[in-house]
């Protein structure tokens, strides 16, 4: 950088890039002549020099200590929340496994309920197949049957809006 700032840099300070404004600021901190010319454009530029005002180190250390203490207070809550999510995930997995297990078990040894469902599903005249999903008639309303084949295992899911839980 030359001894003094160019007229262009002083007059166009506001439209300079952040890096160039930082350079100008660096210069006017130490050069009274350029600083006077720079402030002549706009007195409020004076406060840009606060960019270099230091925050006392002991205050910053106090802040770090306060943050540490505050985190120690809130951390158990966060940990509890995260454990809660984990427990919910495990419970959901167990429930899914139980449901699948029950379905597979029932498929091998038909229970009375499945017999009842079979009666609903097996009505060829009322079936309408759409990409693996069959629409069938249920006693009160229309039901959907999703027929999944997993290897040699067949999983049959029936969605019936007429059933109230």
């Amino acid at each position: 950088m030359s001894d003094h700032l160019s007229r262009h840099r002083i007059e166009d300070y506001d439209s300079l890039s952040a890096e160039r404004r930082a350079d100008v600021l660096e210069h006017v901190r130490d050069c009274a002549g350029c600083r006077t010319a720079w402030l002549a454009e706009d007195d409020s530029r004076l406060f840009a020099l606060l960019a270099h005002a230091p925050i006392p180190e002991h205050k910053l250390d106090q802040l770090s200590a306060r943050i540490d203490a505050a985190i120690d207070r809130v951390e158990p809550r966060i940990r509890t929340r995260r454990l809660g999510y984990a427990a919910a995930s495990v419970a959901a997995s167990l429930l899914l496994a139980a449901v699948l297990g029950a379905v597979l078990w029932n498929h091998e040894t038909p229970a009375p309920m499945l017999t009842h469902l079979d009666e609903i599903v097996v009505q060829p005249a009322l079936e309408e197949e759409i990409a693996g999903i069959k629409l069938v008639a249920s006693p009160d309303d229309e039901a959907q049957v999703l027929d999944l084949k997993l290897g040699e295992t067949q999983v049959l899911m029936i969605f019936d809006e007429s059933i109230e839980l």
Partner: protein
Amino acid sequence: MRDEPQLIRDASTGDRAAFDELVRLKRERVVRTAYQVTGDLDDAMDVAQGVFIKLWQGLDRYDTRRRFDTWLYRVTVNAAIDFVRGRGPKGTIQPLPEDPTDLLAESGPGIEDRLDHGALQQAFSRLAATLAPKQRAAFVLREIEGLDTAEVARVMGVAESTVRNHLFQARKTLRAGLERDYPGLVPKTSRTRKSES
């Protein structure tokens, strides 16, 4: 030694040492920004503490595609503005200094050490207290933190034209306040030349 992106990733998984390091890296910037917006260092400390606790609790939701500093400035400025609004008019009127003098008339190496940042800060805190919080935040981010107008707009979540408008109003108010209340703060030749033009 971990770089900043690594610190952010580690801190977001609950690594306290990484978070402490991140705090050390960013604390001065957060306190300085909060200080300039609230006008009080103790208030700024409270704001900064809240910002870092929020950071600790929400870092796992931080979108890594966005610039971290922009995100941090946004959280800080919003917290500081909320603080100022919640505080109401308290602390907005401060007495004038007894003898405001030309702090910047000297020149040469080491002048920085002789700059009375305290007096400059007092003048800014007093005059900026009359600005709307968003005008003040825009001025602090653009002029003191040195961000580009586009970056200020991203931090504040407004259009660039809105930022320019905030800056125009802020400068106008600060210029008038300097002339009225701190005539000795700016080198006299500056003021003379300005009034001649």
